[in-house]
């Protein structure tokens, strides 16, 4: 077993700031005192320990958040679900720690060091900062993460030497015990390990002793991984309300990255997801993103979402985004995926859905024949690809007029007639009677300029001529 521990000390701060680029100065307050600040706040000269009044006198625009244990747990759970793409065993450990068993991930993700880099980079793309530690026991991995120790220890036998130089304060230890140990001249974990267990238990109770044994892998330390949920729902609260849809692109990208990690963990794709924009007053603005086939491709989702956002006019400023995907499907893996060479970069469904996102769902369509002899009823627009066979027919023009137009000028008849007599039967209930009974003789005719038209004479009123198409 090999464990990767992720320590996220700034989870709430990161979450509050991740909707804005660059992140605004932010502070976490407990009893009107700053207990944690983000890098942007540090840059403008704030530090932890200031009172709220002092901080506001330095920077009146400081955004403040309060500790919220349930939100912290929710975020940790979401990140655990996201992390399941790297490992099948992921354990969230509140308040701020994730444990991933990565011994089994080596074949897919390479050396532990590469995996650690990758996880940290992708976490930062989500908007979270973390420290990572790798060790054969979960307790030791967590210790390395807290102590900022970048060493990678893979064998239990090497653990003792690796943790000996680390300071005592990095252990999970209460302050009175730590003070007692410091008072006895103990500074490093190695010194503690050299003490006889009985002496240690007398000074600090049995808990510290068993913590040391778990660190070294001498006491069983079973962990229960989380199960993967069947639906994705995440919200991102914006640090300031946003009135321009273009400013929503950045936080939406972060949500989509989270979604793609979730989908990668499930090895699934989505063909539809909902984006809910919350305003100060209900109702929410709901946007549905539709894909032509199931996908988990971040770039594709991002382009589609960006097209849809650009086409959306915001009713009011937005204070929160929520992304929901509850219909997961299998990603089609066809031959084109395998031949991912020259043509692999082209993706017609993705291009079509971007066009539909900008121009509207009905702007992209296909044509299909219908079994009807009346020309205006013999075809229809298809939103999706579904096709049926066509009846055999005489010559037809390439352009069909939306409605036949009375013929105004003199034309020379070139060929014809073709009699079309149809539609005299009663229309089925529920259908719109677009065109009723048709009795016509069709001809191909040419005007003096050389243009060819498809014209007809109605048999019900001989002498009445109409243009119905153009041989373009």
């Amino acid at each position, binding site marked *: 077993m090999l464990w990767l521990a992720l320590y996220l000390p700034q989870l709430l701060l990161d979450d509050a700031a991740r909707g804005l680029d660059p992140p605004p100065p932010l502070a976490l307050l407990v009893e009107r005192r700053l207990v944690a600040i983000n890098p942007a706040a540090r840059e403008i000269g704030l530090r932890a320990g200031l009172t709220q009044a002092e901080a506001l006198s330095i920077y009146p625009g400081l955004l403040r958040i309060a500790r919220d244990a349930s939100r912290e747990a929710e975020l940790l759970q979401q990140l655990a679900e996201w992390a399941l793409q790297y490992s099948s065993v992921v354990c969230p450990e509140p308040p701020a720690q994730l444990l991933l068993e990565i011994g089994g991930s080596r074949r897919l993700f390479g050396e532990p060091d590469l995996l650690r880099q990758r996880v940290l980079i992708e976490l930062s793309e989500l908007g979270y900062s973390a420290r990572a530690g790798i060790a054969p026991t979960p307790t030791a991995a967590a210790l390395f993460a807290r102590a900022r120790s970048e060493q990678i220890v893979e064998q239990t036998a090497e653990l003792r030497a690796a943790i000996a130089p680390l300071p005592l304060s990095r252990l999970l230890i209460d302050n009175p015990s730590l003070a007692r140990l410091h008072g006895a001249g103990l500074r490093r974990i190695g010194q503690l390990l050299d003490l006889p267990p009985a002496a240690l238990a007398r000074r600090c109770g049995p808990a510290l002793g068993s913590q040391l044994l778990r660190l070294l892998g001498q006491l069983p330390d079973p962990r229960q991984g989380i199960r993967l949920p069947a639906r994705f729902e995440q919200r991102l609260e914006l640090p300031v309300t946003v009135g321009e849809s273009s400013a929503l692109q950045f936080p939406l990208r972060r949500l989509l990255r989270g979604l793609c990690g979730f989908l990668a963990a499930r090895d699934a794709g989505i063909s539809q997801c909902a984006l809910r924009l919350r305003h100060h007053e209900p109702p929410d603005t709901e946007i549905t993103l539709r894909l032509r086939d199931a996908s988990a491709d971040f770039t594709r989702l991002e382009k589609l979402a960006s097209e849809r956002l650009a086409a959306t006019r915001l009713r009011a400023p937005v204070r929160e985004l929520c992304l929901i995907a509850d219909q997961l499907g299998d990603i089609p893996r066809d031959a084109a995926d395998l031949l991912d060479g020259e043509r692999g970069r082209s993706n017609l469904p993705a291009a079509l859905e971007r066009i539909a996102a900008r121009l509207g769902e009905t*702007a992209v369509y296909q044509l299909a024949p219908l079994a009807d002899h009346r020309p205006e009823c013999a075809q229809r627009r298809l939103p999706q690809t579904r096709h049926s066979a066509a009846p055999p027919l005489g010559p037809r023009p390439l352009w069909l007029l939306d409605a036949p137009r009375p013929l105004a000028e003199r034309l020379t008849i070139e060929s014809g007639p073709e009699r079309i007599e149809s539609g005299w039967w009663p229309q089925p209930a529920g259908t719109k009677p677009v065109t009723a009974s048709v009795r016509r003789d069709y001809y191909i005719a040419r005007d003096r300029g050389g243009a060819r038209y498809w014209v007809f004479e109605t048999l019900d009123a001989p002498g009445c001529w109409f243009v119905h198409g153009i041989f*373009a």
Partner: protein
Amino acid sequence: MSAALDPLDQLLRGEARLWRGREQARGVVGLPTGFTALDAALPGGGWPRGALSEVLAERPGIGELSLLLPALAQLTREGHAVALISPPRRPCVAALLAADLRLPQLYLIDASAEDAWWAAELLLREGGCAAVLLWPQRVDERRLRRLQLAAEDADGWAIISGDLRAARHSSPAALRLALSAADGDLAIELRKCRGGQRQPVLLRGGLPANLPHLH
């Protein structure tokens, strides 16, 4: 030519990067138009691939779309996607089927003037469409150049169908045809033809390819 030079000549002939004036495009195979007389006049024996073609008609209804149809239908039969962007009228399904065009490969887009250019470029560059046909109301050189570049990069065929009288712009297109009706026949003038010669072509009996009795 001496026998010793022949292999060299053959070697160079297949080299598209070598500029050879009028003979330049000989190594490049075009898309057969379906009309023997036109194929013979075009370098490569057909519509230029990976380029923009402008087909400008004196007036609509003389066969401007029928001229393109055999090549478009052939592309769909080969399984390639073809897109019509904002056609000026409703295409007649029966006529398309009569030309043996595969409807599942045909995509139609309703777009405003500005969005039509955007969609055309997107479909060529990212959608991998083999042919994109559009009917712009107004044409300017910058837009044409963008489309020509997109066609080049994606190795697709971009086609502008328009009105001859409105076409005063200079054109970055590889091919520009001017069509006019001539007493039942279709007269085609090659106004611009990269790697070929400007020359007139007359297609007897006009074009409606779906009128078998007129052939």
